[in-house]
């Protein structure tokens, strides 16, 4: 049975030097250093099929980047195993990374002082790419990511959004079947985020590239990933789709109505008012207590309705609710 990625019980502990304050403390820690253990991963298991696109979410320090670094062959775990395309990343590093693209939102893989195009040339040599084929691939990426005007600009002069598009192209020049993205949209403005999402979607759908994405921006996950994985304190707490996560947190639904008259919500049983703005009313209800059609029928009987929508609560609230349920 071959999975794209199979991780079993990954563990990683960092020893962090305690820094005491004050001159005395500094001297003491020089003479007798004290260490604190940080359990970044405390047993993480999951499996990915080829062609999947999975979002890893979790609060700061949850262990997302550590997971990506282990899968990339940068870190060796203290316990557990993982294989990526049949290889153990840190044992066959060179072969492994030749088939892999990685983008770290906070670290550049381009040459800071060189024009973008020269970074691409160097990467073609580093990956030993066939010249004609590399040129074609490059042209394709330049077109899709709209890099034409950036090619002759030194990397350090690019805006963050421009640089991130170049980083993506750099990570994909060698046509990897697998792409890891650690916070690729961090710090980007809305249009830049949209451009990157659009590109990633087509990469996954049209070229079948398997993608793991870590992010703070839940809109990334909602827009791109059918499957999401929640990591918290180095453990995997949820692995499934958004509806599944929703069901774990709440079954609540939201009804937004625009009314043409006045309404006293107290006359509707089983609802709570989330917001009220002029004649617009947002009500929360539990479909197990009162079904949506029933609620709408009652409402219409009480006041003339102009417009109405029923929705699940937004993803931010779901995830926040999920975290709240974890930390007592």
């Amino acid at each position, binding site marked *: 049975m071959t999975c794209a990625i199979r991780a079993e019980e990954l563990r990683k502990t960092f020893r962090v030097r305690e820094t005491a304050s004050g001159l005395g403390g500094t001297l003491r820690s020089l003479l007798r250093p004290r260490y604190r253990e940080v359990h970044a991963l405390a047993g993480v298991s999951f499996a990915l099929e080829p062609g999947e696109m999975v979002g890893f979410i979790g609060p700061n320090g949850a262990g997302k980047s550590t997971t990506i670094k282990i899968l990339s062959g940068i870190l060796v775990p203290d316990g557990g195993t993982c294989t990526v395309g049949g290889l153990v990343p840190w044992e066959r590093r060179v072969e492994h990374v030749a088939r*892999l693209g990685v983008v770290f939102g906070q670290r550049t893989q381009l040459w800071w002082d060189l024009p973008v195009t020269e970074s691409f040339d160097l990467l073609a040599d*580093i990956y030993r790419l066939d010249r004609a084929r590399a040129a074609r691939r490059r042209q394709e990426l330049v077109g899709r990511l709209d890099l034409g005007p950036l090619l002759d600009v030194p990397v350090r002069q690019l805006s963050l959004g421009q640089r991130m598009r170049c980083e993506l192209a750099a990570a994909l020049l060698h046509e990897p079947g697998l792409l890891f993205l650690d916070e690729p949209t961090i710090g980007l403005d809305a249009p830049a985020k949209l451009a990157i999402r659009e590109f990633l979607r087509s990469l996954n759908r049209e070229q079948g590239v398997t993608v793991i994405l870590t992010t703070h921006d839940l809109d990334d996950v909602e827009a791109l990933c059918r499957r999401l994985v929640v990591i918290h304190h180095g453990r995997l707490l949820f692995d499934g789709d958004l509806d599944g996560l929703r069901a774990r947190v709440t079954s609540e639904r939201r009804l937004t109505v625009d009314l043409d008259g006045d309404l006293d919500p107290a006359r509707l049983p089983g609802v709570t008012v989330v917001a009220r703005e002029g004649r617009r009313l947002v009500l929360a209800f539990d479909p197990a207590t009162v079904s949506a059609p029933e609620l709408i029928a009652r409402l219409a009987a009480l006041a003339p309705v102009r417009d109405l929508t029923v929705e699940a609560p937004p993803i931010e609230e779901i995830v926040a609710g999920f975290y709240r349920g974890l930390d007592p």
Partner: protein
Amino acid sequence: MDPARGTDRHDGGSGPWPPPMAGRNDGSAPRQGAFHLYWRLVAISIRAQAQYPGSLLLLSAGHLVVTLLEFLGVWALFDRFRLVRGWSLAEVALFYGLVNLSFALAEAVGRGFDAFDRLVRTGEFDVVLLRPRSEVLLICGQELRLSRAGRFAQGLIILGWGMSSLGLAGRPEVWMRLAWAVAGGTALFCGLFVLQATIAFWTVNSLEVVNTVTYGGVETAQFPIDIYPSAVRAFFTWVVPLASLNYLPLRGLLRGGDPGWVGWAAPLAGFLFLAVSLRLWRFGVRHYTSTGS
């Protein structure tokens, strides 16, 4: 998580997953060999240094003057005592020249390892590990330090002076011996840089220890090591074999007595030292911890 999910899709497919890298050259093209890549990378660093030719020249010239002044001290010593343990100034010039040539080359070529602790502290080594090439090649390719031309020139001048004073300058066989000794010496100093870089995987506080050995070694080996106490001699023969880069190759040449092969074989110790250091380095890479965000 269901491990069985979707496996039919894969098992039914053809070939391994992920597929072998699609755009990859068949490997026969020589332009992508290790040396080609090394020069491609180093050319970037040379271009960067050439952007400020004035400062490069000044730095090199400064190096040349300072190191020549150092030798003036040696000259003053010999001016008073004529001989030190039976060695003349011209003979010591050969020892002096060989160490400086070796160290200048190592500092130029091994700069990436010399400055490696920064890559560890900042986590930039992550990016090196993401590239499908030898880590050693990529680190070496980061910088070729041209300003070491100053020390190199000084070594060459002093060596040349010593050779002509001793009437050896016209013997190509001697030059070959010395070039081989410099190669071994360069490997040895590179080995010290690699060791220093290896320690950085565990701590960035003890780097000074190796630094002391390196710079102390350069100072020490500028003289024939038989002038030192036996403990120092043993250390620089068996632990950090600096004796192999000048004392052993030169003793037979200047004093006779040693069979000829000793001088030819001794520089191999430098390569051995480098090989051992690289083994330790590979072990260290597995302990790299990157940085938290």
